[in-house]
């Protein structure tokens, strides 16, 4: 019997989140004796590139495809074609729309991740009126919208539901700017927002590199003490920044776990033909250095141990 071939398609090549995911998959594949093919879209949101990668992997003999869909709807027809050929398709990280477009989903809830930090921010403010800066991803990206809208939802402000790709903008949001999930651009965005809203007290960032950029900008302006930065991802560097007091709280997700679960399911399918099904929530944990009353959070040590599912 030949070695099972498993394909992993991430959204991009560079985001540390997906790099970790690839590492986890590679480790698991090595352990279980499977061959792993990897591919990615060219940019965040590149659906066509993911479709191409999937086709090529199937041509290369992959019987299982693990995919973090860049576009939850647009990928559906291509997945359908693959499944019609008997390929097991598992969505990682975020679901397709509809969810049953794939055989199974090992994912995290980005909207919920937003809600958690929103609730944390609300409790920390303790009744003070919020003046918010949001450093988002870039226009049109679903994950960017889900985290943003979830955050506002958690803060108890006007917001949209998890399916909406537009960004809500209640009055409390003083400034919105795109960070592209990049530290330098995050810093620039924060600097500009500080000019517009010097009295900001809460900063939401799409991920921890953007948060680090925001912290730099605040620190240069001498405002790092009075502003609460919240973020999403829970990467090891991000947790370190939580420990150092740069980031107040972050919603931690577990790419390593998703990936290893996916690979294991693929190997199982190759051996026994058994397909996994349904939604397995790999979980979101709120990590904060300082717990606040009424919001469940874990401390930095737990976060470091778990960072992206290290152990």
């Amino acid at each position, binding site marked *: 019997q030949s070695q099972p071939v498993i394909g992993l398609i991430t959204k991009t090549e560079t985001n540390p989140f997906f790099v970790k995911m690839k590492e986890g998959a590679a480790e698991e594949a090595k352990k279980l004796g499977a061959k792993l*093919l990897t591919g*990615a879209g060219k940019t965040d949101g590149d*659906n066509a590139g993911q479709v191409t990668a999937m086709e090529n992997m199937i*041509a*290369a003999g992959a019987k299982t495809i693990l995919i973090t869909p860049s576009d939850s709807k*647009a990928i559906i*027809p291509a997945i359908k074609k693959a499944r019609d050929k008997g390929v097991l398709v598992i969505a990682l990280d975020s679901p397709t729309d509809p969810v049953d477009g794939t055989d199974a989903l090992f994912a995290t809830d980005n909207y919920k991740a937003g809600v958690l930090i929103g609730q944390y921010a609300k409790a920390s403010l303790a009744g003070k009126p919020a003046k918010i800066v949001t450093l988002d991803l870039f226009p*049109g*990206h*679903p994950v960017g919208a889900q985290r943003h809208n979830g955050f506002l939802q958690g803060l108890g402000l006007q917001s949209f539901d998890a399916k909406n790709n537009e960004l809500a903008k209640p009055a409390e949001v003083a400034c919105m700017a795109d960070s592209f999930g990049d530290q330098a651009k995050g810093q620039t965005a924060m600097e500009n927002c500080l000019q517009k809203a010097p009295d900001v007290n809460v900063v939401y960032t799409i991920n921890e590199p953007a948060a680090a950029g925001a912290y730099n900008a605040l620190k240069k302006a001498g405002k790092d003490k009075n502003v609460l930065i919240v973020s999403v991802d829970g990467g090891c560097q991000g947790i370190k920044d939580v420990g150092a007091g740069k980031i107040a709280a972050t919603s931690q997700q577990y790419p390593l776990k998703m990936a290893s679960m996916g690979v294991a399911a693929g190997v199982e399918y190759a051996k026994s033909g058994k397909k996994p099904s349904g939604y397995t929530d790999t979980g979101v944990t709120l990590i904060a250095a300082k717990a606040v009353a009424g919001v469940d959070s874990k401390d930095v040590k737990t976060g470091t141990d778990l960072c992206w599912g290290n152990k």
Partner: protein
Amino acid sequence: MDTLKSKLPPIGQLGPFIALLFACVFFASTTDNFLSGQNLSLILQQVMVVGVIAIGQTLIILTAGIDLSCGMVMALGSIVMTKFAVDLGWPWPLAIAAGVAATALFGLVNGLLVTRIKLPPFIVTLGTFNIAFAITQLYSKSQTVTGLPDEMTALGNTFALGGAQVAWGSLLMVLLYLGFWWWLRDTGAGRHVYAVGNSPEATRLVGIPTEKVLLQVYVIAGVLYGVAALLAVSRTGVGDPNAGKTENLDAITAVVLGGTSLFGGRGLILGSLVGAIVIGVLNNGLTLMGVDSVYQVLITGILVILAVTVDQLSRKGGR
């Protein structure tokens, strides 16, 4: 003697083909299924969108211009045609026409800015790149458009051709290339495209309306982006507002790999088809080999340089 020779492309223009051949031989020997008819037809499907965009891009580059907006305009076209069909319920031929009209309009705007105000094409199309992106996002509310009528995705269907399944869209792409090849080679309008790119001042002085030629090229390119939009829709089965971000670089790469000069006036449009296929082959072959995706990027970088090196060396002496 004159006539026979003039029918064959000079040896110097065979460079891209040689590079493609090298790539194919390499992948055929390192992987099992690269040469299967099915895999080859898959590659053709994967390059059809960029391939058709590259036709428009070639025309513009032949006039010494460049079009950065092509991919975004294509995305806008696919959103317009799918939303018109799904949300407004227009019959599919009209919806497609509306999408193509939108892309042609963008071509017209690009062309007018380039010819009337004489702005550099790089900046004009960088501007319309942003504008098309924003309009796409606003109009689609960043939502993918699904539930299309089957007819709109028919070009993604395949027919059997000697064992392999060939997509109608791939066939359309090849036919378009042949058509424009003929047009550029055998009609006055086509030759004027070369002339404008080769020496705009001389072309103006012999009394050719250079601005009209340019404008026409930009509009034709716009229409081609509309066709590419339809191909993208039929390939993915949806209208995708996040498409089109990297197609400009891909298409320009295909054109340059195909041996067309970015300074205008020199090149062969069939080279662009080969260039597009080279990109597709690299992508496909490296995945088949099971190369890690970061290493794929590395190797693609090296191979792209190698491909033009082969081209350049095969041209030796033709200084």
